[in-house]
Structure formats: C-alpha cells, structure tokens
C-alpha cells in the first residue's frame, strides 16, 4: 500500500503536480470566498484548509474536534464548472448535527460553486464534515474546505 502511494505520488509529479495544485488553490480561494460573509459576522476562519478531488457521488469525511460553546461554519468551494458540491456535518453517532446549510453557485461566469453548514455543538466531541460531489461534468472535481468559529 505504501509502495502504491509512493508510485502514485511520483506519477502525479510526472503528470504535472503543479497543475493539480493550481486547481486546488482555485477551489481554496472559492472556499474562502464562501466563508467571507461569516468573517463579517465575527467568525474566525482557520488558516489551514482541507481538500482534494473526488468523482461524482464520491464522499470525503473531514474529522474535526468541536467544542460546545463555539459556533462553527464549514465552508466548501469548488472551481469545477457545472459541479454541485455539498458539505454536511454529523456527530460521532452519525446524526446530522448542523443547524443550517446552503448550496449556491458563485458569480456568473466564475465557475464556482459554494456550500456550507453551520454547527452549534450540543456536545463537545468528534464531528464529521462530509463533502459530496453531487454532480459534475468532470471526472474529478476539485474541492476545498475551510472552517471558522466564534
């Protein structure tokens, strides 16, 4: 498995890793754009982010330690034109934990699509932000996720 991973990394490098990162960076800038309204509401957006690429109907779970007493927004962005992505947050029992969520396209012509989910944890513990590519014209869809708290 380790060997496979190394080979995969090398293959990516040969295939033009910089192009992959450029695409993820675009998704990341859209994730930050998605989070912008919440910054204005006093949320502090973490400087690190999570992301990658997924096929249609694929899912990725980002595991997070959340604290009761904080109020969180998870904000997702993609730069894949025509893609629809979602993020929803579940507690460690697999129960939907968010109090609101959104999905919307970015500015016309930008190719961006945004999604977000707000969690006000009723308990301190482990939560799962599940990213899903609902539909996409592309085989692989770039995504990036950031979260903020207040």
């Amino acid at each position: 498995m380790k060997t496979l991973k190394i080979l995969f990394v090398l293959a990516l490098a040969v295939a033009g890793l910089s192009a992959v990162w450029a695409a993820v960076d675009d998704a990341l800038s859209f994730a930050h754009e998605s989070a912008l309204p919440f910054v204005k509401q006093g949320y502090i957006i973490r400087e690190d982010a999570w992301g990658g690429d997924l096929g249609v109907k694929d899912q990725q779970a980002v595991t997070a330690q959340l604290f009761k007493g904080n109020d969180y927004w998870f904000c997702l962005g993609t730069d894949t034109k025509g893609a629809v992505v979602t993020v929803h947050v579940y507690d460690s029992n697999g129960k939907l934990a968010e109090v609101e969520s959104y999905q919307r396209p970015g500015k016309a012509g930008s190719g961006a699509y945004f999604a977000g989910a707000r969690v006000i944890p009723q308990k301190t513990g482990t939560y799962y932000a599940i990213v899903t590519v609902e539909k996409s014209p592309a085989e692989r869809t770039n995504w990036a996720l950031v979260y903020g708290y207040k």
Partner: protein
Amino acid sequence: MLPRLIPAALCGLAFAGAAAQTPPQTVDLSKFPATAVDEVVVPVPSEVFNVLDKLGSPNWKGEMRDSLGTNTGNRAQVALLLGTVIAEGFVAVEAEDSQRVKEIGQEVLVLADAINVRKAVIARSKSVIEKADAKNWRAVRSELDGALQDVRAAMQELGDEDLAQLVSLGGWIRGTEVLTSIVSKNYTPDGAELLNQPELVAYFSRRIEEMRSSRLRKEELVAKVRKLLRDIRPLIAKGSIPVSNVQKINKLTGDMVTVITSGQE
C-alpha cells in the same frame, strides 16, 4: 497549507455515497472506507480559549507559569517546549499581561531558531509583540494560532513532520493543564465536557506510534508523552467526566509540563 491537502487529495477514493442535496438525518459512519475519512483536525488553541472565555472569569494570572522553561538543545524537548510556550501566550492574553505576551513572542523566536524554523515565525513574533503593545488581544490570539501553524508548516517542509507533531502536542498538553485547572476550581459538567476529546488523544497516540524516526520515538521524553496519552484516554472515555478525573488529568499534564519545561527526563 499544501501538505495538509496532500492526504485528502490522495485519499479521495470512490465511495458510492447516498447523500443528496437534502441531507440524510443519519449516516452510518462505520461504512465509510478508512481512506475516505481524514485524520482528526487538531483544533487551534483559540477554539478552546474562545469557549473558556464564556466560562466565567477565572484567575488567569494565577494560571500563568513563572518560567517559560529551559531549552536543553534536544530537538524533541525544544519542539514540545515551543508548543507549551505558544499555549502560555494564550494564558497571558487571557490575563491581559502585555509584558508577558511580548516575552513569549521573543521566546517563540528563540525556540524556533533552535529547530531551524526561525524565518517562518519572524513576522508573527513581531506582530505578536506589536499587537500586545496595542492590547489588541483578539489579534494577538490570531497571531499565536498563526505562529503555531507556520512553525508546523515550516517543519513539514523540512521533512520534520514528527517534530511538528511534538509542537502541537506541547501546546495541547499545556492547554489541557490550564483547562483542567480552571474546570476543577469551578467544576461543572459543561466545563468538564471540554475534555471530551477521545479521537484527538487517539490521533496523537497514533502519530507517536507512527513516527518515522525510531530514535525520536524511543526518546525518554517522547515515551513519557506516549504514556501520558495512554493514561488520559480512560479518563475521558465517553460519558460525563467527573471532577476526580479532571483533577487527575490536571496532575498528569502538569507533571508533564514540568518535565518538558525543566528539560529533566
């Protein structure tokens, strides 16, 4: 930032998900393949202190340590010490002690220099000092969070992922000592619930077990941290965390901070 993106990029493997735009009320997390679940995200200290702000008005000055500790030159000790010093910065912010925050800003630079990541934190350190002078506490917190992340990122770039983990652990240990001290002095189940971090503790344990450098993994100080995590795990098992467990965790983490800061193994 990019190194954190790599695992997710590699792990984005096919999983025939059932989620639609209207999300299901429940999901079976056990059916998620391991590759589709990222390792737990380590919270930044601000997330914890943000909650502590809402738990009344503890005597933050009483929580401050007299000494920031001694740098022994041992890289594992310096990495752990750097984490504790950054966490101390948050305590000093809560105590609104600008002089102490400025000392911490300088010390972060000295310790970062000792593990070859000085360049990564020069701007942060300067900013911490400037913002402490201006008593802009929210901004100081943000810079301290940023300093921790910058140090980690610089270490990862240098291929020192193991040491980067120790910086996070040092911060977590000192942060947990402070948290348990405050909660045990004015115990409430809600306050104690902040310690409900079993996945995070398990994650830290795994990271130590999987350290690439067997020499580092076997170092006495690292072995003590591993034991600390093992001892804490049953104390924060699911359910309400009683005051006796909070006190035990406070003793365990306090002793560990003493070992780290004194440089005695």
